[in-house]
């Protein structure tokens, strides 16, 4: 490889910044060397900005607090050996330039802190983390070592304390061609320190949290760089905090204002003050993952890609305190607000969000030490109370939607607003820059709310994850451990048989019993659960019932007809009877037949008490919140008709005792299609702690609702994690048996629906594929918006050249089985297969339009 030609003086600069973990190992230093070489090969001058070795800044901070010189030097010895070990691993000569930095640190640590004044001394000591790492790096890279303090100058702000001026200083930087030219003289690849600068008097100062990113941004501005690249341990900024929302999407493109808003309202990957210096000179900033340099990462720049407006991110800040000020007729008085805000200033509390009405102004305060640990808030409230009524509302969380053109997306936020409408929203704020929309809610609900709101933004298309120019993969797709490869669905190996069956009659459901058994065995392997029931409303086909009976499942029934079906197909399987708003006769008959009946209202005990005398009964409670993939499948919360409210529990138990009914089973079921394995342990824990108060209790039935992935990128339910979570609670409550009652999870994948193509039609650029199955055959898409995979079985494997709306023959515009599906071009008579149709398919089929019921067939 030949040496590249020397760069012209006018060659652009690229600033590369690497954090602590990126400069702590040989492998990462090699990555830095490769990246610097690649940028140089692009024809750019390279300035590498580095942090201290990971943990080093904390070590140095600790040593500053140490008064005993012997102790300090013991820490110095550990610092020396760590850098020496890295130098050796990098193959550097033992007596290199970095040794000089160690000696200067040694000299500082032997001085008394008071010699220079504590803060300047502390800044000088702490600067050595970066001085050391950059010196090591200069040697390894063969780069010119640049002292950042010769270039970056801090400016004291009028209201800054000395501590802030020394340890969290403010830089002011504008592009300076002379500095750029001078640095160009020094070499083509330079390395310098993050986090440090000098003040007007020439003393070393630090830049505080996120200081190295800040340094890189200021160097980028000063040099008017082609770009600044921040190399870190995540791929970039995401549409939400990935720790809270695993489905958060990588943001590929942001403008400065959007990025600033996201960084300020919660994202931790970039310190908000990094963006300001780059904005005026329009220097783009890239965020990249050191472990995966090939990933695109996030590009923050002036030119936004042309795209229709989208919500870019959902961020959250906790620990918000609201101060609501109420007064009549005072707001229009000149100076009133100025007086009010002067009080906030006087008590050292900074105001963030503001919402106002004619008689009320509400502002938010961020969580600070001054707020939490002093009497500032009490004193503020006392002062404000002289001029208005004050109410302090806390703890709150501010949930912010960020995206340019927010107001043009309001119509897509219907679902999100409905979800928020069920919470206490204390303040809504939107400013004229049209970038954000903030809702302040109770902090207690925020964690659970965030993933739901993100999912609603995705599903409503307000967050346009399908636009690959704006959004990248989800965090879980990038970083979550890859799930075990999903086996091919059973029907792929049974194509010929399925086509044969379809030739006899369609629409036709086929149930594959080996798949049912496999699912059943996977559940039975969970050690924590004592008894399983199949919720047979999902599919009461006798062959399925007897197969599940053979696998050791009991049967959960909700109506007399279901009890009959259960007795006929599996007479010896244990049964549960859990009806809802059923007539008295249903309960009477079931009790006479010896069934274990679960009640979920006071009415049966109040009105028909004699029925339950000396009986064992179950009780279904409503734990107060529902979950699930669609409003119509949530079965908890006050908007749901199921379950006894907890406020009625004491009365129910008193009634039961009076009647002589013994409550032996406590049950809750909060919804369906849940993929989060922590959901059931939560329900279990709540039921168990309620159950402690019911002495007659034998078992807790924590319901079903085990979900199956419906959309690309969704991870299947982690059964091992579920078992571990349940086991932990079981150890605390060994006195109760644990029961569960899944339905769909057992049978959905085992079933497919076969239909034949009837007609094709094009209308306004939309292509309709008509089939002989419709909402009368499979209601879930129309009822829940459920998504079922649809394939053309006749042309399996043919190129998917068409984009179809798959519709049925029913006279309803909602008779749609699937939207926008990429499939091969179809012809009349082709057999279409609809996946995951084993649950709530035939069971919900109707004779609407008098089109008749589908055929059902079982495959062994």
């Amino acid at each position: 490889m030949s040496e590249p030609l020397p760069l012209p003086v006018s060659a652009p600069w690229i600033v590369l910044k690497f954090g602590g973990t990126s400069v702590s190992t040989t492998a990462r230093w090699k990555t830095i060397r490769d990246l610097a070489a690649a940028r140089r090969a692009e024809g750019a001058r390279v300035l590498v900005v580095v942090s201290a070795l990971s943990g080093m800044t904390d070590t140095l901070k600790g040593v500053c607090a140490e008064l005993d010189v012997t102790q300090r030097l013991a820490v110095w010895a550990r610092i020396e050996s760590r850098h020496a070990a890295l130098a050796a691993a990098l193959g550097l000569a033992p007596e290199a330039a970095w040794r000089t930095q160690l000696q200067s640190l040694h000299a500082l640590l032997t001085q008394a802190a008071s010699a220079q004044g504590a803060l300047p001394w502390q800044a000088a000591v702490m600067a050595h983390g970066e001085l050391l790492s950059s010196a090591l790096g200069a040697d390894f890279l063969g780069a010119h070592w640049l002292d950042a303090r010769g270039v970056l100058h801090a400016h004291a702000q009028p209201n800054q304390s000395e501590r802030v001026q020394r340890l969290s200083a403010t830089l002011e930087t504008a592009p300076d061609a002379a500095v750029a030219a001078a640095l160009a003289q020094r070499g083509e690849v330079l390395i310098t320190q993050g986090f440090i600068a000098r003040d007007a008097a020439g003393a070393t100062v630090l830049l505080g949290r996120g200081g190295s990113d800040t340094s890189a941004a200021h160097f980028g501005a000063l040099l008017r760089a082609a770009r600044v690249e921040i190399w870190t341990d995540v791929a970039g900024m995401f549409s939400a905090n990935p720790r809270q929302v695993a489905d958060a999407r990588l943001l590929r493109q942001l403008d400065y204002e959007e990025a600033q808003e996201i960084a300020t309202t919660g994202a931790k990957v970039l310190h908000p003050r990094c963006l300001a210096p780059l904005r005026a000179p329009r220097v783009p900033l890239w965020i990249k993952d050191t472990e995966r340099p090939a990933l695109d990462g996030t590009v923050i720049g002036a030119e936004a890609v042309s795209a229709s407006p989208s919500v870019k991110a959902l961020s959250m800040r906790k620990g918000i305190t609201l101060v609501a000020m109420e007064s009549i007729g005072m707001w229009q008085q000149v100076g009133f607000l100025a007086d009010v805000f002067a009080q906030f200033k006087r008590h050292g509390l900074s105001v963030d969000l503001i919402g106002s009405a004619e008689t009320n102004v509400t502002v938010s305060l961020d969580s600070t030490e001054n707020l939490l640990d002093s009497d500032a808030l009490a004193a503020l409230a006392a002062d404000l109370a002289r001029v208005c009524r004050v109410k302090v509302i806390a703890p709150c969380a501010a949930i912010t939607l960020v995206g340019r053109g927010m107001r043009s997306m309001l119509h897509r936020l219907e679902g999100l607003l409905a979800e928020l409408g069920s919470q206490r929203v204390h303040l809504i704020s939107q400013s004229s820059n049209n970038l954000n929309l903030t809702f302040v809610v109770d902090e207690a609900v925020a964690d659970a709310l965030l993933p739901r709101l993100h999912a609603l933004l995705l599903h409503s298309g307000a967050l346009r994850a399908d636009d690959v120019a704006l959004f990248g993969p989800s965090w879980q797709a990038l970083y979550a451990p890859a799930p075990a490869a999903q086996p091919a669905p059973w029907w792929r190996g049974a194509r010929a048989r399925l086509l044969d069956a379809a030739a006899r009659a369609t629409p036709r459901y086929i149930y594959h019993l080996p798949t049912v058994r496999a699912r059943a065995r996977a559940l039975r392997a969970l050690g924590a659960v004592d008894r399983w029931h199949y919720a047979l409303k999902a599919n009461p086909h006798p062959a399925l019932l007897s197969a599940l009976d053979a696998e050791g499942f009991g049967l959960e029934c909700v109506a007399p007809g279901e009890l009959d079906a259960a007795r006929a197909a599996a007479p010896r399987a244990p049964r549960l009877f859990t009806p809802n708003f059923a007539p008295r006769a249903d309960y009477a008959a079931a009790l006479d037949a010896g069934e274990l009946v679960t009640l979920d209202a006071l009415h049966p005990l109040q009105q028909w008490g004699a029925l339950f005398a000396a009986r064992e009964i179950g009780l279904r409670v409503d734990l107060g919140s529902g979950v699930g993939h669609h409003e119509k499948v949530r079965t908890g919360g006050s908007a749901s008709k199921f379950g006894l409210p907890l406020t009625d529990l004491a009365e129910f138990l008193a009634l039961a005792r009076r009647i002589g009914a013994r409550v032996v089973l406590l049950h809750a079921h909060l919804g369906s299609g849940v993929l989060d394995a922590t959901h059931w342990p939560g329900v279990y824990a709540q039921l168990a702690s309620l159950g402690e108060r019911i002495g007659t209790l034998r078992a807790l039935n924590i319901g079903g609702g085990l979900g199956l992935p419906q959309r690309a990128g969704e991870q299947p339910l982690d059964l091992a994690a579920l078992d571990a979570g349940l086991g932990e609670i079981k150890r605390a409550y060994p006195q109760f048996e644990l029961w569960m009652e899944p339905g769909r999870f057992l049978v959905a994948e085992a079933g497919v629906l076969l239909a034949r193509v009837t007609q094709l039609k094009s209308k306004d650029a939309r292509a309709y594929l008509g089939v002989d199955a419709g909402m009368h055959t499979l209601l879930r898409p129309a009822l829940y918006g459920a998504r079922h995979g649809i394939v053309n079985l006749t042309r399996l494997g043919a190129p998917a050249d068409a984009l179809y709306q798959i519709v049925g023959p029913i006279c309803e515009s909602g008779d749609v089985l699937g939207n926008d599906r990429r499939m091969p071009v179809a012809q009349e008579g082709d057999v279409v297969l609809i996946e995951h149709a084993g649950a709530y398919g035939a069971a919900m089929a109707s004779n609407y339009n008098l089109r008749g019921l589908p055929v059902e067939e079982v495959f062994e």
Partner: protein
Amino acid sequence: MPTAMTELPDPRQARTFRFVACDYAQGEAVLRYAFDDGPELVERLRFPGAPVPDGAHAQAFRRALRLLHLLAGVSYYKAGATPELAIEGAGVDGATLDLLRAVYTHGLAEFAYRNGLDLRGRMHWRVQTAAAVAAPALGLPARTLVPIGGGKDSLVAIEALRTIGAECTAAWVGNSPLIAACAARTGLPELNIERTLAPELFAYNRMGAWNGHVPVTAVNSAILACAAILYGHDSIAFANERSASSATLEYDGQQVNHQWSKGWDFERDFARLVRRTVASDLHYCSLLRPYAELAITRTFAKLPQYFEVFSSCNRNFRILGPQPSDRWCGQCPKCHFVFLALAPFLPKPRLLAIFGRNLLDDDTQSAGFDALLEYRDHKPFECVGEGAEARAAMAALARRPEWREDALVARFRSEILAQLDAGALALGPWLTPQGAHGVPARLRAALDFLRA
């Protein structure tokens, strides 16, 4: 469905509850009971790494274990609430029998009230009377066992003892991650005693046997007396406070106190009995006895190191989690009271960060707070402060601008305050020590920690 259990005879049909025997070997104590000729109910306690007692210590331990056997029977007796209680084996002296009668009637008073039983006329003790032994001094080391419960009180007691340099061990019975986390935060040596109840007790409960509150502090006190002898401690310092002595309600002429075994009467009598019959130099006391809840919460407010680990809520699930809602259910009387009692002494945002929500700005909690204030309702059956104390705390908040507009504080101001005697609402009287206590001289200086 469990089947084997249904063969158990119904203990409510039994005539006699029998204290069969108790043994100890290799760190495990075994307590045996039975209803009539029914199956033996066997409770086990494990004392981890316990040294083998010898000589006078062995005899003292036998006496402590016997006392534990007699007191721990209360958990099993209640399932049948039989008319007769028979103590088998060696006889029992008069003072011990007096304490037993008190524990089984006052300690089960709430249980009796809830189940509509009258135990006073019902309990007949069949026992050989024995002469009282005068227990010798054992020369126990100057160390204190402090039972730790995960709540604020024991943490205040520990920090009070720390101020006088007392050597302490944090002790608890049973498996609780919450307590383990609090104990770890204290940095003290730990002693965790395992207690396994007889499994038949759960079966009895499922059969519909009598069930309800038992005086668990009496049982734990006896367990710790055994531990003090085994491991060598001259004192046991509980953290029960003044208001634990007041009754929660009166029922059919009888005082019903949910926390009877945390009250002064039990403390005084148990301490005396331990000194007379176990070891004359073993001191049992409650360090916080002279103080009201508000004096304790005021002190606790200065211990921020515990804010993120403690919980007094006994209704919430006891698995630790990172969220406040994992430790505080926010619905029960304990949550209500601790919130209210800490509120006058902490910056509001700090208090709300502990609980994760503002219970006083939630209309649905009004019935719970009314019960604390003894407004319209009686005092709840939980270990919570006196109504007058809760009213004083609420009145203090009603004067504070950062609190006064919160839903329940505003309601207190508009509906309740005018009906109260304004002279009885000051915080001050609740902050000073008052009344009898049994703190031994060696530890008495620790009481000063709770003074302003």
